[in-house]
Every structure is written in structure tokens, then in C-alpha cells.
């Protein structure tokens, strides 16, 4: 019985780990690491998606547009802090130079989702289309994590 419970626990754990484990995509020279978002709060109309973009090619590429059926509008935004004031601004494109991964993460670059059509629910996924100048277009699935997440689940990158 004990052994059975143990096996059951292991099975459950491995399932959970698989679920939460980072999911990755590649498109030509561009690698897209674990797209994720926080669950939205109540009827909140804004959300943000985060991911990591790396370029294995020889030339810089640029993320020039984002689209999603989950929101009325999606834009690439960044944050800056000036004298204790947080400013969020759209950027035209995100440069992805070879060999230097670009992190979209809380407090920095993010895909801003404006006018969510439905709440982002923890455990669900929604499609996000990324359009690169050179690599072209790809649809990725964004994993919705708890509203309290500060970083992608299972990727412990404290203090980076």
C-alpha cells in the first residue's frame, strides 16, 4: 500500500512538473522560451505576457508585432523608473541581437494585453502570435500562472 501511494505521489508529481515545466519554441534562428502570463484579477482589462527571446543566428532580428485573440489590442511595452515614478511605454520593436537573450519579465519588457476579452485563468493557455522582421511569424501558447507569480514557474532565476 505504501509503495502504491509512493508511486501515485511520484506519478502526480511528475505530471505536475511536466505541466509547469518551461515550454519552448523555435522559429528559424529565434528561440522562444516559456511564454507566461499572470492570471488576471477580477474584471481587470489589462494583462502582460512574458517570455525569453534568443537569437542563434549571425544577424540581429527584431520582434516587430504581437497579436492575440485574448485581447482587443497587444503591444510591446517597456518600463522605466525615473525618480520613483514608473513609466510604461510602447516600443516599436524589440531588438534581438545574436547571443544575448532578451528577457520579457515583470518590471521590464512585456507584451501588454489591452482589453482582455475574458479573464486569464490560472492553468489555462492562450495563443500569442509573434512577428519577427526576419524569422517571420509564429504562434506560441502562453501559460497562465498564479496572479502572484513573479517569474516563470520552475525557472528559478532570482535576482537576475
Amino acid at each position: 500500500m505504501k509503495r502504491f501511494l509512493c508511486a501515485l505521489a511520484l506519478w502526480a508529481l511528475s505530471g505536475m512538473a511536466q505541466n509547469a515545466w518551461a515550454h519552448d519554441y523555435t522559429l528559424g534562428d529565434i528561440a522562444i522560451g516559456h511564454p507566461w502570463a499572470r492570471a488576471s484579477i477580477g474584471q481587470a482589462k489589462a494583462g502582460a505576457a512574458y517570455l525569453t527571446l534568443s537569437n542563434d543566428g549571425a544577424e540581429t532580428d527584431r520582434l516587430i508585432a504581437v497579436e492575440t485573440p485574448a485581447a482587443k489590442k497587444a503591444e510591446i511595452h517597456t518600463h522605466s523608473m525615473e525618480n520613483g515614478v514608473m513609466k510604461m511605454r510602447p516600443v516599436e520593436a524589440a531588438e534581438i541581437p545574436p547571443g544575448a537573450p532578451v528577457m520579457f519579465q515583470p518590471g521590464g519588457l512585456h507584451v501588454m494585453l489591452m482589453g482582455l476579452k475574458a479573464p486569464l485563468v490560472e492553468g489555462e493557455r492562450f495563443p500569442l502570435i509573434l512577428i519577427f522582421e526576419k524569422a517571420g511569424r509564429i504562434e506560441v501558447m502562453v501559460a497562465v500562472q498564479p496572479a502572484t507569480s513573479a517569474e516563470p514557474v520552475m525557472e528559478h532565476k532570482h535576482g537576475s
Partner: protein
Amino acid sequence: MRRSTLVVGLAILAAILAGSVAWYLTPMPNPDGQAFTVSKSNAPPVSVGGPFELTAHTGEAVTDKSFGDKYLLIFFGYTFCPDVCPTTLNDVAVALDSIGMRADLVQPLFITVDPARDTPEVLADYVTAFYPSILGLTGTPEQIAQVAKAYRAYYAKADPKTEDTEFYLMDHSVMLYLMSPEGQLLTLFSHTASPEDIAKGLMKYLPQPTS
């Protein structure tokens, strides 16, 4: 010998004076790291806080006098803010959860800088998702301008010329203020303060519960 001592003494005095004047004139808030403290005893009169009249997410009218002997933990933000505002509110919730009964002495307030979109209904939905006792406050544009001015909080539309009424962004101060029940600023936390930093700051200023 005596004269040189005097000169050195005067120089030191002048330096101290210059230092304190510079500190006094330093615009607030500007900490970039952890919580910093305004000492109560000989603090220069940096005036932060003051009277306000606002509407709570419950629909009730509230003023700075509505909270009795509670310590106020105040944050300015807006609900169409996908990143910093939820992070800070969550940090506040985790901090309050970690300080036991002392949390009952604290009234967390989320004051919107975006009253046009943040009606009491929108706020109710938002703030209660983080922590049951957080009160969302909104008001007329004038009331919000007044309370922000009293707290030296900055806010403005990111694009002042925008005609978009749905998706516009706000720039805003991201300080967290701890105020005494008498309305004195006890400490400020920057947006980089962790829940542990906030909890530590609260423990420092909140009295031991008596009952």
C-alpha cells in the same frame, strides 16, 4: 593651534549644515533600494500626508480621519496596470500575512490615480482579490489631485494628448507609505522592497498588540 582647531570645527559644522540642507532639499521620494526611514525626533519637516476626502470601493465616503487608530499603508496606482501595481499589492498581502495579529493594526489603502476608469465597482473587484482588508479609494479628479499632492505622489497620463479613453497608460509614483495613526510618515518602501522588507518595516513601527 587654537585657531586651526576653530577653523576645522567651523568647517565640520558647515559641512554638517550643508549636508542637512541638501538632505532637506532633496526631493522626495527618491529611494531606490530598500525601505528608508524618516526619524521622528529630529526629522526635518518633510511634509507628507494630510487631509483627504475620497470614496471607498464599498461606496462609502472616507477621509483621513476615518481609520481611527490604524496605521495606514498607502499605495497610489491604477487597475489598468498589469505589472507593478499587482506586484506591490501582492507584496503587501504577503507582508501582512506574515506579521500575525499586528496586521489588524494596519489599514492598507490603494488610491487610484485613474479615477476615470477606476470606479468603486472596478476597484472593489480588484483590491479584494489581493487582501481582504485592502480598501480601494477613488474620487473626483480634484480629490485625487489633492491627495496625491499631499503625499507628493506624481501621476500623469503617459500620453497627455491621447484621445483613447480605454487603453491609455498612467505614469505614477510607486512608493508605499506607512503613516502613523496621527498622520505622520513613518517610513517609505520603494517598489523593489520585498514582502520581507515590508514586514520588517511594519514590525519596526507597529506596537505589540495588547490583547
